[in-house]
C-alpha cells in the first residue's frame, strides 16, 4: 500500500505501510528532467532526481531515522536525523539512526535516486536537509495525530504531540508505537502539513552529542577497514610516482614466496580509463591473505618506474616565471570581475600599496587513508566505501562492472575524514578492477606514503595584489591578479568551471570599493588536483586579509578599523547561489571577535593580535588570535572565532566544526606543503608533511555563535578561510616579520 501527497508539481511525500505494520514516510523530489528507460545511469548523473530520506516507527515504539549523507566527521549522522525528529516530535532517546547508501528506483520510466542529496563536507548537507527533511517528519506527525483523533474521538485540533506520543486534552498519552498501524492506513492530507513554528523547537538549537560516541570510544564503530569479508584478499598498492609514467621493471619472485601472498598484479589503466578524466597512476598491487603478508611482499618486490613526459622542471611553471607573468601586460586567461576604472584611478590616487602572496600545494591527509572493500559476485556487487559522495561511488561501480543498478549495494560506513578527497573514487576503481581480476573480495589499503603521494591536491597559488587609496587613506581601488593551476583542469567539466574553481567574482572586497579588477592566469601542473576543504576560499582569503593588513601597516591605520571602514554601511551584496551577502552580519562577527580578544587593550607582554574575516555559502566568520614568538617557538595563546550560520541545528556539532576548521586552518598554515621534484611528489611521510601537534595548537577555541533565525547554512568549511590570515596577522604583530608566504613555520625560521 502506498499513497502520495503532492507538495508541488515535482515533489511529493510518500506514505506506505511497512511489512511489520510500521509507518514509513519519505520525501521525494523529482527533477524537471524526466529520464527515459534504458539510458545508462552514468549519462544521467545525480542531477536527475532527488528522493528523500525516510523514517520508520515500529509498533513497539522504536523510531528509526535514516541519515542520507555520509559522516566523515561533519556530524551529519547526528544533525540530519534530529531535523526529522524535531518535526516528528520524536523522543530522541529512542531514536536509532540508520545510514542510507545510494539507492535507485524507477517510476514512470525514470530512474531516480531514492534519497536525494547525498554529499557531505561541502557545506550542503544541512541546507538541503532544511528544504525537505522537515516535511518527512511533519507528515508522520500529522498522520499519528490523525490516528489518535480517530481512536479517541477527539478532534485533531485539540491534540498535540510530544516526545514520541500524542497528548489528549485529559492528559492521557497515546504512544506513537500504539498508533502506527492505524496511521499507516490513513489517507494523507492533500496539502503538506504545516511545519512547526520555531518557538516550539525542542531538539533544533539544543546540543546533541555524536550518535556513535559510545561505539567510537569502545572501539566497536566499524570503519571500512574494519570490514572482514569471507575469502577477501587484502591488497596494498605501489603507484608510479609519475601520474603519466610506466612500470620499467619488476621482479616478484622473492615476494611471491612469502607465506600468504597470492597475486601480484599490474594496474595499467589506459589514458581516460577507468574514470574518464580522473587521472589514475599505473600501479602494482600485492594481494595476500592478510595485511602484513601484503606489506612484507611490498617491501620485497623489486620495482623500477619510467617517468612520463611530466618529469623534469618543464612540467611546472616556476615561481619566478609566474611572478613575471603576473607583472607582465599579458592578457589573463579570464577576467573574473571588473568595474569602475582601476587603471585610470591609479594615475591620480594619493597612495598605492602592492604585495605578492605565495601559497603551496597542500594534501588532504585524512586520518583514515584511502581504502575500500569490494565483493563482486555473478549477480551482485557489494562495496563498503568511505566516500563523501555515495552516488558517485555507485556510478563508478556500475561503470566498471556493468551490473544492473538494482544489484549494486554501496555501504557507507563512518569515515575518517574527507575534506574533499573522497569526492574522488580512484581507490574504489582500483579495488573493483582487482576484485574482478582475482575473483575474490578485495580489501584495498593505501599505505600513508601512497595516500600522501597520490592525492588530488589543493592548487598552489600566487596572488599579486594592488590597492589604491585616497588622501584620507580610504581604499578606492583593488586589483587582484591570481595565477594557479585549476583544480578541475583536464576534467570533463564546462569551460567556465576551470576559473570558477579558482576565483569567485563576488569575493570581497568586490562591491565595496569603487574601482575593482580581478583576473586569473591559468598555470599548468603535472600534479593531480581536486576539491579541498573551502577550496579557493581558503587561498583567496589569506591573500585578501593579509593584504588588508599590509595596507593598514603602510597607511598607519588600525587593522580592525580599516576592515570596518571597508565593509561600510550595511548593505546586501549579490552572492551567486547563496542569496545576498549581508555586510552587517559580517561586520557583526568581526566586531564580536575583536571585542572578545580585547582588540583595543594594548599588550605589553610581547604578544601580538591578529584578525581576519570571511563570508561563504551564506555564512559569516571572523577570527582573532593572540600569539607570542620566542626564538623559533610560536605559541597561540588565544583563538577566538565568531560565526553567524543562521539557525543552529546542533550547537555542540557547530562548535566542533568551527573548532576543527580553525585548527585545520592553523595546522595547514603552520607547516604543510607539497613539493614537486622532477614531476613527482617529494613528501612521502607525515614527517615530511607535519600535522600540528597538541602543543602547537591553542588549548581552546573560543567560539562565539551569533543567534539567528535565518535558514541554517553549512558549517564544515566556514571557519577554515580566515584562520590562517588571523594567525599570520598576529605573528606579524608580535614580530617584525611580514608573512607573504605559506607555510608559516619555515618562513619564521628563515626570517628570525
Amino acid at each position, binding site marked *: 500500500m502506498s499513497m502520495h501527497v503532492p507538495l508541488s508539481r515535482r515533489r511529493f511525500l510518500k506514505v506506505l505501510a511497512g511489512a511489520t505494520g510500521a509507518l514509513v514516510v519519505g520525501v521525494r523530489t523529482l527533477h524537471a528532467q524526466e529520464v527515459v528507460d534504458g539510458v545508462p545511469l552514468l549519462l544521467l548523473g545525480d542531477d536527475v532526481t532527488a528522493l528523500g530520506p525516510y523514517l520508520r516507527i515500529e509498533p513497539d515504539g522504536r523510531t528509526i531515522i535514516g541519515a542520507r549523507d555520509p559522516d566523515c566527521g561533519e556530524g551529519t549522522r547526528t544533525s540530519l536525523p534530529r531535523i526529522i525528529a524535531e518535526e516528528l516530535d520524536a523522543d530522541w532517546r529512542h531514536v536509532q539512526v540508520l545510514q542510507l547508501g545510494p539507492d535507485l528506483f524507477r517510476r514512470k520510466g525514470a530512474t531516480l535516486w531514492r534519497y536525494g542529496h547525498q554529499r557531505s563536507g561541502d557545506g550542503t548537507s544541512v541546507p538541503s536537509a532544511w528544504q525537505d527533511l522537515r516535511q518527512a517528519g511533519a507528515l508522520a506527525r500529522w498522520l499519528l495525530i490523525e490516528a489518535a483523533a480517530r481512536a479517541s474521538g477527539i478532534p485533531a485540533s485539540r491534540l498535540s504531540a510530544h516526545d514520541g506520543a500524542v497528548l489528549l486534552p485529559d492528559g492521557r498519552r497515546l504512544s506513537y508505537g500504539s498508533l502506527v498501524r492505524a496511521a499507516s492506513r490513513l489517507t494523507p492530507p492533500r496539502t503538506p502539513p504545516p511545519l512547526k513554528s520555531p518557538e516550539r523547537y525542542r531538539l533544533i538549537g539544543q546540543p546533541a552529542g*555524536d550518535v556513535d560516541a559510545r561505539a567510537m*570510544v569502545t572501539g*566497536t564503530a566499524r570503519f571500512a577497514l574494519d570490514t572482514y569479508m569471507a575469502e577477501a584478499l587484502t591488497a596494498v598498492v605501489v603507484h608510479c610516482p609519475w601520474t603519466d609514467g610506466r612500470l620499467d621493471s619488476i621482479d616478484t619472485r622473492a615476494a611471491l614466496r612469502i607465506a600468504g601472498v597470492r597475486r601480484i598484479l599490474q594496474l595499467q589503466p589506459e589514458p581516460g580509463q577507468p574514470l574518464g578524466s580522473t587521472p589514475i597512476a599505473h600501479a602494482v598491487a600485492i594481494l595476500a591473505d592478510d595485511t602484513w603478508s601484503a606489506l612484507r611482499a611490498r617491501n620485497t618486490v623489486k620495482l623500477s618506474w619510467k617517468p612520463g613526459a611530466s618529469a623534469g622542471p618543464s612540467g611546472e611553471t616556476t615561481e619566478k616565471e609566474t611572478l613575471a607573468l603576473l607583472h607582465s601586460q599579458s592578457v589573463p586567461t579570464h577576467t573574473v570581475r571588473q568595474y569602475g576604472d582601476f587603471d585610470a584611478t591609479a594615475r591620480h590616487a594619493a597612495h598605492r600599496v602592492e604585495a605578492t602572496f605565495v601559497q603551496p600545494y597542500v594534501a588532504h591527509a585524512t586520518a583514515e*587513508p584511502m581504502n575500500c572493500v569490494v565483493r563482486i559476485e555473478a549477480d551482485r556487487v557489494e562495496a563498503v566505501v568511505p566516500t563523501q559522495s555515495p552516488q558517485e561511488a555507485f556510478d563508478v561501480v556500475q561503470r566498471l562492472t556493468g551490473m544492473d543498478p538494482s544489484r549494486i549495494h554501496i555501504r557507507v560506513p563512518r569515515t575518517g*575524514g574527507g575534506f574533499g578527497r573522497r569526492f574522488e573514487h580512484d581507490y574504489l576503481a582500483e579495488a573493483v578492477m582487482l576484485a574482478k581480476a582475482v575473483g575474490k573480495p578485495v580489501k584495498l589499503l593505501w599505505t600513508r606514503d601512497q595516500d600522501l603521494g597520490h592525492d588530488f591536491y589543493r592548487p598552489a597559488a600566487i596572488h599579486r595584489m594592488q590597492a589604491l587609496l585616497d588622501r584620507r587613506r580610504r581604499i578606492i581601488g583593488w586589483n587582484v591578479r591570481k595565477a594557479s593551476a585549476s583544480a578541475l583542469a583536464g576534467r570533463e567539466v564546462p569551460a567556465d568551471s576551470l576559473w570558477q574553481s579558482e576565483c569567485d567574482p563576488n569575493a570581497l572586497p568586490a562591491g565595496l570599493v569603487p574601482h575593482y579588477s580581478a583576473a586569473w592566469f591559468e598555470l599548468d601542473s603535472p600534479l593531480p588536483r581536486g576539491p579541498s576543504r573551502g577550496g579557493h576560499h581558503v587561498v583567496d582569503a589569506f591573500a585578501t586579509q593579509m593584504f588588508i593588513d599590509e595596507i593598514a601597516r603602510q597607511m598607519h591605520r588600525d587593522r580592525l578599523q580599516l576592515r570596518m571602514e571597508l565593509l561600510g554601511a550595511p548593505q546586501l551584496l549579490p552572492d551567486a547561489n547563496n542569496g545576498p551577502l549581508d555586510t552587517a552580519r559580517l561586520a557583526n562577527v568581526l566586531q564580536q571577535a575583536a571585542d572578545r580578544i580585547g582588540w583595543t587593550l594594548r599588550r605589553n607582554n610581547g604578544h601580538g593580535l591578529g584578525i581576519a574575516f570571511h563570508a561563504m555559502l551564506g555564512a559569516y566568520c571572523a577570527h582573532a588570535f593572540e600569539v607570542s614568538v620566542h626564538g623559533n617557538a610560536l605559541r597561540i595563546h588565544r583563538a577566538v572565532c565568531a560565526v553567524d550560520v543562521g539557525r543552529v541545528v546542533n550547537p555542540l556539532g557547530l562548535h566542533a566544526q568551527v573548532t*576543527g576548521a580553525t585548527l585545520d586552518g592553523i595546522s595547514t598554515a603552520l607547516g604543510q606543503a607539497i613539493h614537486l621534484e622532477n614531476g613527482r611528489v617529494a613528501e612521502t611521510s607525515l614527517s615530511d608533511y607535519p600535522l600540528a601537534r597538541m602543543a602547537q595548537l591553542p588549548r581552546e*577555541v573560543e567560539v562565539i555563535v551569533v543567534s539567528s533565525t535565518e535558514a541554517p547554512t553549512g558549517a564544515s568549511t566556514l571557519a577554515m578561510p580566515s584562520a590562517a590570515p588571523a594567525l599570520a596577522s598576529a605573528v606579524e604583530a608580535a614580530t617584525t616579520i611580514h608573512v607573504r608566504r605559506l607555510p608559516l613555520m619555515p618562513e619564521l625560521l628563515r626570517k628570525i
Partner: protein
Amino acid sequence: MQARPDPADSADLVKVPPRKGIALSVNGQSFVHVGDPGMPLLWYLRDTLRLSGARYGCDSGLCGACTVLVNGVRTLACERSMDTLAGQSVTTVEGLAAEDGSLHPLQQAWIDEDAILCGYCQPGWLMAAADLLRRKPQPTDADIDALPNLCRCGSQPRIRRAILRAASMRRQNRHTP
C-alpha cells in the same frame, strides 16, 4: 540415529600438544601467535584477532592511531613486533571498559565532552590518555600538550577537556566514602 564417536578422534582431542608460538594475553584472554614473528602487533590485533579499534594511520610511528598498552605502558602497535611480546599483556580500546560493560572514566568523559568528530584516531588517544593518567593521575595542561598523537579533525581541545574531566572524576570518586 546418532553417529558413534570414533575412539581415535576422541583420543586426538586430548593428545594435541600446546601450539608452539608466541603466547600473550590480550584484554585478559590468552592467545598464541603462530605466524610470522616479525608481524607488527597492529596487524595481529586487526587481522588475526579482529580487534579493529587500533587503527592504521601511518607507517612511521607518527600518528598514534594504533596506540595500545603493553603491560599498562603506551605502545605503538605498528612498531612493536610479535616476537617481543611473549608473556606480555596487551590492552586495546576494546579492553578499556570493565568486564560488566561499564565504561572507563576516560570513555565516559570522551562522550560527555563529545570529543569524537570523525572518530578514527580516538581509540589511540584514549589509550595514550590512559597511560598518562596511570603515570600522572592529575595531569597538567603541559602533560597533555606532550601527548604525541595526531588528530586531523581538530578535536584536541575537547580531548584535553575530556582528560581533565576524567582525572577530576577519579579525584571525586576517591574522596567519596
